[in-house]
């Protein structure tokens, strides 16, 4: 290759490089977008992500594929997404869990595999207020009954959760701290379904579970909701008081959000964000979500980032309160 051609060649490729992002901006997405779902079918993440993908397809005019990478309480999916190419073609659907891994790893002296800094929050899709529910055979009618009894008999009342340091375990720690209840006894299970089954069978007496997951059992009178961790009373269960009303400044939601890996170009984020906003506000998506008993809780990228910071602070606090489990 002679020198002149070499120069032309470099200029051309430099020009192509410079034009690259603009070019990408015009044509993104040019092929299928994958949303990695870090949780297996059967949970809220799967139930919310699939209708979103269906609503997103006509907006992006490209197929949107949901790929399940479940495992280790969502850590596998988070890790896969964090290490994927940040080109906007790989997104992540995750929930509360993504906030807590680093803190838990710190507790055990492990190097965290992913931290919050590995992800760009794009949108919160739903936020399902957590409820404190008890089995209907238990005598508690109000939160006060429950708290009083728990203070009288420390380490006796058993509560079930979907997993250690998970989204249905942390709210109990927040509640214990706010109400001054010395200790409730923790029965970890492997998922939201088994935790509710344990509660229904009276193998556990209380649990903090998402509204959508317990609604049917509350309506059927098998479970009793004592308090809601939501900021305001839920439209579906208007009789359940919020903890804030009862004088405890505690708030906690089971939320599902969409993330992009760190390093995704801002131009691409600025295409994806409005597209997800449009999809999340489509009738198709809203109907699907409402039927699941969830309240649509869309937040755009900016508001979600602020919410996520506050939520992560709560979650870190709760993990520290729980500390390392004996045994």
């Amino acid at each position, binding site marked *: 290759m002679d020198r002149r051609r070499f120069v032309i060649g470099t200029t051309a490729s430099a020009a192509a490089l410079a034009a690259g992002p603009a070019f990408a901006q015009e044509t993104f997405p040019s092929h299928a977008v994958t949303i990695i779902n870090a949780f297996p079918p*059967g949970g809220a993440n799967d*139930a919310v992500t699939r209708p979103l993908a269906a609503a997103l397809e006509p907006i992006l005019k490209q197929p949107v594929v949901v790929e399940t990478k479940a*495992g280790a309480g969502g850590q*596998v999916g988070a890790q896969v997404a964090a290490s994927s190419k940040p080109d906007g073609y790989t997104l992540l659907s995750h929930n509360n869990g993504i906030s807590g891994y680093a803190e838990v790893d710190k507790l055990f002296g492990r190097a965290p595999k992913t931290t919050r800094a590995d992800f760009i929050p794009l949108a919160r899709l739903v936020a399902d207020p957590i409820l404190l529910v008890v089995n209907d055979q238990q005598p508690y009618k109000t939160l006060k009954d429950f708290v009083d009894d728990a203070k009288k008999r420390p380490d006796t009342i058993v509560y079930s959760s979907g997993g250690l340091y998970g989204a249905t375990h942390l709210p109990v720690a927040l509640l214990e701290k706010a109400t001054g209840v010395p200790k409730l006894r923790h*029965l*970890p299970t492997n998922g939201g379904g088994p935790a509710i089954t344990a509660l229904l069978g009276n193998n556990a007496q209380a649990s903090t579970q998402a509204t959508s997951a317990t609604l049917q*059992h509350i309506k059927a009178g098998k479970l009793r909701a004592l308090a809601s961790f939501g900021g305001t009373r839920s439209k579906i269960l208007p009789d359940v008081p919020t903890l804030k009303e009862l004088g405890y400044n505690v708030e906690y939601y089971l939320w599902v959000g969409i993330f992009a890996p760190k390093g995704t170009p801002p131009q691409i984020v600025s295409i994806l964000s409005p597209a997800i906003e449009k999809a999340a506000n489509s009738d198709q998506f809203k109907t699907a979500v409402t039927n*699941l008993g969830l309240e649509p809780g869309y937040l755009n990228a900016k508001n979600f980032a602020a919410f996520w910071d506050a939520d992560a602070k709560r979650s870190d606090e709760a993990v520290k309160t729980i500390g390392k489990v004996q045994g």
Partner: protein
Amino acid sequence: METTFISLLHGFEVALQPANLWYAFLGCLVGTLVGVLPGIGPLSGISILLPVTFGLNATQAVIMLAGIYYGSQYGGSTTSILMRIPGEASSVMTCIDGNAMAKKGRAGAALCIAAVGSWIAGTFGIIMLTLIAPPLATLALRFGPPEYTALLVLGLIFLAYMSSTSLVRTLLMACLGLMLGMIGIDNMTGHFRYSFDLAELGDGIGIVPVAVGLFGLGEILATPSHKVVGEVITPKLRELLPNRQEWREAAMPIARGSVLGFIIGIIPGSAHIISSFLSYALEKKVSKHPEQFGKGAVAGVAGPESANNSASTGAFVPMLALGIPTGPITAVLIGALMVHGVSVGPQLVSEHPDVFWGFVASMYVGNLMLLALNLPLVGIFVSVLRIPYTYLYPMIIMFCIIGVYEVSHSIVDVWIMLIMGVLGYGLRKFSFDPAPLVLGLVIAPIFEQSLRQSLIMSNGNYLIFLSRPIALGLVIVSAVLLTLSAISFVLKRKDWRAKLAEAETAES
């Protein structure tokens, strides 16, 4: 009872509408495919096709999605029998005797027995579901951690009957399986155990990669192609059907498997996996010819296959009667109904009788469709064995890789499969039987969790296992079994010593 019958008739009216019949057929067809092809299990099959049902009404959606679920249980045995690849945990036991039957040229018979057994078990399950779902479901709720622990202790005792090798070998294999089952995050304390910093090992080692490696790949490694050249098994059409003798041998195992599977299936949680293992051990225990197991015993196919089908129907009991998911698959089905605005809970029958009874009736129809679909397919599937072994086994390895990778899209699982293949080859050389290893792997995480959960509930008091009626019953059964085998062990010892003494006196 009468009202049940009238409601069921109404259900048939719903189920037999042409559109609903069509969706039931579609579900069964996809389910059969999902079952036959390794990798795509019913869970991913259903969740992939879930958005397709958004355009249908709730009844049609659940008819079709449930069709995929129980349809896949029919197909699950196919690769086990033909290629020794268990597509999912519930068909692990089928591959031992099913594949041995195929080697004797009885692949068609094995597939037929699996299909008919599945049909009988499925139909039995639905009859039970129709008649006594609500009281059964309440009983199922009382099955908490202590009951689980007791059930699994019983399972561990059954382990001893799993293999025909000596007791020490069986126990060693079981220990190995139990240890493999301990890998991953400890649910109770959050410790990572033996996971070597791999997040993929956080949830532990899957049953499918281990079983496919030990049985599928291990078999290929131990079977050099030059030994089987020219030994192509070409089944004749006449020999596709089981003969009278085989039917007779299959009858009782199918009946026992149906009942056992249904009882285990209604328990919420992951117990349904062990139904086929328990059925296999039970059949071996009651069989007059336990030595035939592992060498192509008909009962070793008929029992587990019926049990696993009946368990999958039993899983619908807590789901329909109480709205509790017994496992991830029923959870997805509940989600599918909720997306259509039908909330699943104790009031489902009264609020949506069309959905409930239409769904129940469609299962009777669907099971019949599956039988009609599967029996003719037997002939086609068996012709796979006409491919010369040299060409067949590369294809089997390909299916092993797809089957393992697609379950959770993890290449780590494929490596595990490969390691297990090598291990399976080694174990065979040193005459160990891998079946107890797989049962150990299945039992370990559930046993450990439920034991520790029970102790949390009782604050460390072991009396909890004796103070709850169901748990106590299971503990008594375990104790009786242990005592019986201890007695027979002592008697045998005496026998052997007596013989030795005789021999000695004769000598002197």
